[in-house]
């Protein structure tokens, strides 16, 4: 992957936040940038981050392995992350999640829908425990959900994906 001109500008801006001899600090923001286009990182993306920061590619791999928000495999266009941690679970989030998976045609543990649009998974606390059940879709917050509400949200993302095609 080569950085687009816009990405290169953003990268330069990111690097300015850290001391000139501390480029490594930019590894997470650079990975976010590299992941933005298709929602996951292939080997070229990873190499591009390593090259941009003058660091070994193995280091970039270890970083990706450590942090949960980077992905080395294709996922759905929309990552739907439903919190089922204790505070949310005390307000019915586990059952909510199971019903949601079922309506999405997925096993109770989640997965990617056949059309490749949605990857559904359950995650730990997202700092919105008072608004359970809740989820993040590509990190946007959706709170105080009901079955109907999340179905409508999913439908609107389906629409959005159609328009973008």
């Amino acid at each position: 992957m080569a950085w687009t001109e816009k990405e290169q500008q953003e990268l330069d801006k990111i690097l300015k936040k850290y001391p000139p001899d501390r480029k490594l600090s930019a590894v997470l923001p650079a990975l976010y940038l590299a992941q933005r286009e298709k929602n996951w990182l292939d080997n070229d993306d990873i190499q591009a981050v390593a090259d941009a920061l003058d660091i070994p590619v193995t280091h970039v791999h270890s970083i990706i392995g450590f942090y949960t928000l980077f992905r080395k495999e294709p996922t759905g266009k929309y990552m739907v992350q439903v919190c089922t941690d204790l505070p949310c679970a005390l307000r019915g989030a586990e059952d909510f999640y199971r019903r949601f998976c079922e309506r999405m045609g997925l096993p109770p543990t989640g997965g990617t829908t056949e059309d490749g649009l949605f990857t559904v998974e359950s995650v730990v606390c997202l700092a919105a425990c008072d608004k359970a059940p809740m989820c993040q879709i590509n990190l946007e917050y959706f709170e105080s959900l009901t079955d109907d509400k999340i179905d409508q949200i999913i439908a609107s993302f389906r629409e959005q994906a159609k328009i973008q095609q």
Partner: protein
Amino acid sequence: MGNELIDKYVLFRHRDVENIHQIEVYRANDGYRALEKALKEMQPGDVTNVVKASGLRGRGGAGFPAGVKWGFIPKDIYPKYVVVNADESEPGTFKDREIMTYNPHQLIEGIILTCYAVGAETAYIYGRGEFAPVFRDHLQQAVAEAYRHGYLGRNILGSEFSMELHLHLGAGAYICGEETALLSSLEGQMGQPRSRPPFPAVEGLYAKPTVINNVETLTNVPPIVLHGSDWYRQYGTEKSPGTKIFSLSGRVNKPGNYELPLGTPIRYLIEECGGGIIDGKAVKGILPAGASSAIIGPDKLDTTMDYEAMAAAGTMLGSASFIILDETVDAVWAAEKNVKFFKHESCGKCSPCREGTFWLVNVFRKLREGHGTKQDVELLETIIEQMKGNTFCLLGEFVVPGVRTSIDLFRDEYEALAVAEEETTPGPAKDLIHTFF
């Protein structure tokens, strides 16, 4: 709403003043006046002193006095850094997100005052990766406004003092809330804890003197500087002064954030603020510090919520994330959920935590799947005994009190699951466990 105990919000000022996230509104309501006062009338040391005198304690969990921490920063080493902990990942905690979303300027002003106090010219706010929208839509805008108005950047308000404030997002790892892991993460490493000493005050970010404080801690600083330590001490107790945000979640009617004076009874939070328990059920257990809590029973409802009283009640205040269990909740299930959380978040650096959480999850599963034995309950106790005091950082230590108190308070529920007389299915062999430690 449940707030007769303070006449005005100190931290959640957006609940009193609409649109205080806009710099004009913030300025029209005392905003940035503490900074003006500090730059015009106070030496950096005076700022540290007033914060010391206020008795403000860190809101990230440990409750260490903020002014004392700032006092540890060596004078003659440059550069120095201020790093704001916005990792907020303890299950049940959701207060920093509200501050950053609705009252960001008060946090920013607090950061600038802190930098001035300790002589730092660069600050970073480290937020958990999942806060990307909060940073993008709220904080970033507020920071840009602060730059435009000359509160950040070169020669702030015409003074000699200059500083830069940068936002930095993590990427999904609870351990990055631990201050040394956070620094490693900010330096571009895996977020694994470092040994202390050296403490960050001496060797922190890029091995330079660094103050690390929680979002809520620093949001207290502007009103303290503006109104003084005596004003601040009108709330709270002698040893735990001020107001605190209590994140209330679980089986209550009105979960949410409530700002109350430290020293308010737990009962007030649950009943007056939270509107009592769903369907009028009885309280079964309280986790005052999120998943890391020692659980306390309903006999402790009159305990006051301050650092001392909570410790005396056998638990801790921590970040004040009160998760409420009622009589309908399966205690073993709840304990298992938290253990799974810690297994998921263990950074893997030390074996007592990495292996301990692994085995705990296995034994819990065995119990809950219906082939547990009495020995398995003992095994849980053995595992936490062996983790206790032996983990590299506090994450591993946090696992212990939840399991310990869950078994102590609800032993009958554990024993009811110990159905089999002896091993019926191959469970984790005990002698194997010992070889791991």
